[in-house]
């Protein structure tokens, strides 16, 4: 099938960008969306043109590297799927598809569809860790954790940090990401000694990076490829209130 792409092309962070139209012929339904872009790039390279820059790594939905907004939807039209898990069987011959980068002040465009998401790394580094002495592996059963709590923590820890929540949010807020990271520690005994310090530092770092405020639109949850629930944002708000009222 033939697909018409409207792709955001931008030389660098400071250059103005624009949507450029490309026709991609010979697309087969088994191709992933990224493989379709690969096919386009092979052609562009053969023609001596600059290929479209986009991010990807594992291409099996676990690394959080791919990050496209396809027809106005972060990671495309599928539920709980990353861009690399989107396949061309979703489209029909002659479809016109618009591809844009994740847009947020905190995620500056590097080139074309590539954005710099290191803001997430800095937010994580502000408090998204547990301070423990490493050394010999401790007895796995020394700290008992109720199964349902462990499950909730694991659900929060499923966040791959792709940034789709920011891309989908009308306010470019990073609340779902921060909520997932705060929750995965707050739910486990190992994370509790530093819970107040963590939530205050991560919220502070989040605002510093220029992400917007949460207005509870829940587009983040709808866009999240890992199904992170907004109940984590409620937990983040609880943790924050608790820390703001009790920490010294």
């Amino acid at each position, binding site marked *: 099938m033939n697909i018409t792409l409207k792709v955001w092309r931008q030389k660098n962070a400071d250059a103005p960008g624009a949507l450029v139209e490309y026709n991609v012929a010979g697309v087969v339904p088994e191709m992933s969306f990224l493989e379709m872009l690969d096919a386009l790039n092979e052609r562009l390279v053969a023609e001596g043109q600059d290929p479209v820059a986009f991010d990807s790594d594992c291409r099996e939905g676990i690394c959080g590297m791919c990050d496209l907004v396809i027809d*106005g939807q972060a990671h495309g039209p599928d539920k709980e799927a990353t861009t690399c898990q989107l396949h061309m069987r979703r489209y029909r011959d002659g479809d016109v598809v618009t591809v844009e980068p994740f847009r947020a002040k905190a995620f500056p465009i590097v080139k074309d569809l590539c954005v710099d998401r290191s803001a997430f790394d800095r937010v994580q580094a502000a408090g998204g860790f547990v301070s423990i002495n490493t050394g010999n592996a401790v007895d796995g059963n020394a700290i008992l954790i109720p199964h349902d709590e462990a499950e909730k923590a694991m659900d929060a820890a499923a966040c791959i940090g792709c940034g789709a929540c920011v891309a989908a949010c*009308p*306010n470019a807020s990073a609340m779902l990401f921060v909520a997932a990271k705060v929750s995965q520690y707050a739910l486990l005994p190992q994370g509790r000694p530093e819970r107040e310090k963590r939530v205050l530092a991560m919220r502070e770092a989040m605002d510093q990076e220029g992400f*917007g405020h949460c207005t509870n639109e829940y587009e983040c949850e709808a866009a999240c490829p890992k199904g992170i629930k907004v109940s984590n*944002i409620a937990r983040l708000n*609880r943790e924050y*209130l608790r820390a703001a009222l009790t920490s010294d």
Partner: protein
Amino acid sequence: MVAAAGLLLCGFLAAHLLGNLLMFAGGGAFNAYAEALEHNPLLPLAEIGLVALFVLHIILSVRATVINRAARPEGYRVYRGKGARTPGSRTMALTGTLILVFIVVHVATFKFDLGGLKGPDLYGHVLGWFANPWYAAFYVLAVGGVGLHLSHGAQSAIQTFGVSHPRYTPLLKTAGLGFAFLIFLGFASLPVYFGFVQKRQACCTGGAHS
């Protein structure tokens, strides 16, 4: 803070509505209620508190909106989302502005008597304004805005306070929607009844006001 002020304002709305619904009990009951309220020595204090809540709610919302707009300097050429937004959530700024305009008109006409319709009692004063179909229609439109604003605001405040329970949160959210709808229905019933229904009855059947 936006949520806290918003919830307190909801409390005011509920109390205000209950008082207003006394209009259905006739002029005597409504006027007696208004008299009692006006002579309550705590009224100025409540008014100051109310204004403070509104100012706080508005300033912080505007500030958040400015920050949120700045968080995405260049918008999407195509933005569709995945259907989580609601008509209420999309229009918070619009309905908020509508409510502010309405409150200014509302306080100017009913409290400070702009337009000079003040009669011997408040009941007649209100009926005088509702007799103007434009005023009554604007009133309905504005309380519709209040309902839409609350349809997002109520559940949003619940989330902001960190309330999250697999069974009770959906119930609370439904209750929030119900509250928004009741507030709309309650306030809209007054201009609709006194401005349109009763007026038509009066003209066509020769019936008198209660």
